[in-house]
């Protein structure tokens, strides 16, 4: 079980701010997770249509797509930040 949180237009496209999911075996990295999410429905496919535009954080630290999600408690997806 891992908590996933979404922000800005990623949140709007998916239609939820957070969810807790049970990941199947074999989902080892952020990129794997993105692929798995995209297959969950059109709203996810839409949010991750251009995965290079979506940034990720594990337990509130920025990570690359190749980062391992082993042991993650909270995974976040969001657009590039636009500051204040």
């Amino acid at each position, binding site marked *: 079980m891992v908590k996933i949180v979404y922000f800005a*237009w990623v949140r709007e496209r998916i239609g939820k701010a957070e969810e807790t999911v049970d990941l199947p075996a074999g989902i080892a990295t952020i990129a794997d997770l993105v692929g798995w999410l995209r297959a969950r429905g059109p709203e996810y496919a839409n949010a991750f249509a251009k995965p290079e535009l979506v940034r990720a954080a594990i337990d*509130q630290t920025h990570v690359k797509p190749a980062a391992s999600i082993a042991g993650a408690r909270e995974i976040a997806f*969001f657009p590039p930040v*636009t500051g204040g």
Partner: protein
Amino acid sequence: MAVRVQREDFDTGAEIKRLTAGRTDIGAIVTFTGTVRGTAGGQGIATMTLEYYPGMTEAELERVEAEANARWPLQGTLIVHRFGELAPGDNIVLVVTASPHRQAAFQSAEFLMDYLKTRAPFWKKEAGPDGKADWVDARESDDAATARWAGKAQ
């Protein structure tokens, strides 16, 4: 050192007073106040809505505040950033730096603002007078402003 992410407005004058009250060792206080402009790219703005990542955003701001304190001889720093729906003329962000030396106060405030404008986890949505709202894209010129601090000696 203090970081606050809040919905409420802030009062720059009151924050200066709080940071400097009773102190006689400070020589220079710099503040930067960022406000919502009524136009962006030639288009009118009715509202600007800021979203952030509670927990991560504060942690990132504290990290960059600590970095400023490590680079410059500062006696006090404050970062206040608002979230939620704002209107043109509203305050968005406040940075205050205090130092014995004016250059340190200026440079650290500029460093913090370059970070806040480019790397801090905030997302901005702008709505026009017709109510049509769009998320703002990240800007490259701002990234260049932040990059110039990389590896810069004090």
